[in-house]
């Protein structure tokens, strides 16, 4: 896929692996703008794609019914390429992508206080859960 960077993770079904894509120019723009925190958040993306707590489908807006959100609390947060700290309490990391597995955002969000690794208000923000870790079933 020209102009994209690839990253491997769990298939949304939970069975096997899948390749995900990020538009390279989107990442370049954050880097070239000196938006270091957003850039270094990219380091969390592979872990969340490989070990999600939950995968949601449907972003409750037009044309995004098939889009996906992988969410989890990664083991660490990156301040730069070499410096990590524990994640901020009550935060979950979410990776958003369309049905072609093209990632369009990655970010920290408030966590659901009742369910570790789930973003706040997940019940109304997404249409359904397509996969969740066994500990949450």
């Amino acid at each position, binding site marked *: *896929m*020209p102009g*994209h*960077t*690839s*990253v491997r993770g769990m298939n949304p079904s939970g069975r096997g692996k899948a390749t995900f894509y*990020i*538009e*390279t120019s*989107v*990442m*370049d*723009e*954050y*880097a*070239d*703008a*000196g*938006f*270091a*925190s*957003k*850039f*270094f958040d*990219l*380091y969390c*993306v*592979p872990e969340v794609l490989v070990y999600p707590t939950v995968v949601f489908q449907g*972003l*409750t*807006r*037009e*044309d*995004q019914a098939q*889009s996906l959100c992988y969410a989890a609390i990664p083991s660490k947060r990156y301040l730069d*390429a070499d410096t990590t700290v524990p994640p*901020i309490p009550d*935060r979950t990391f*979410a990776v*958003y*992508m*369309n049905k*072609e597995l*093209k*990632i*369009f*955002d990655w*970010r*920290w*969000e*408030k966590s659901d206080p009742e369910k570790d690794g789930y973003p706040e*208000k997940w019940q109304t*923000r997404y249409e359904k859960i397509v996969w969740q870790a066994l500990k949450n079933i």
Partner: protein
Amino acid sequence: MASLKKYLERKKPAKIFRPVSQYIAAGDCFIFHFKPDPSYAERLDDQLTIYRSEENGDLTGCEIKGIKCILKRLGDFGIPSQEKSVDVRVLFVGYGLSALEPTKWPMEELRQAAEKANARVDTGELVAV
């Protein structure tokens, strides 16, 4: 195609921050960040998400979704959005026209930030999708 791991080994962020505004076609969304603080997202409604600083809770940016619909709505009101690039503040107006119950409180701060940054977004990419 390069892997993300290789990309991150090669690419380094610039030392000086400037506001970022970009349309991301894969999500039909517009993202505007005007402060460099580490941040978290807070969804305000179906179309608007804001970013708040982890350090002090201040507004640092926003994401507006459903840009294709917003451009259509702007056109319905005779507001041109077919130029090569458009002032980001026009998208804020479009959000206000498109959302069923637009969240108004962050708009003035976002407007001021966009004005200060002279933020524009490439609509060539927007209208091409």
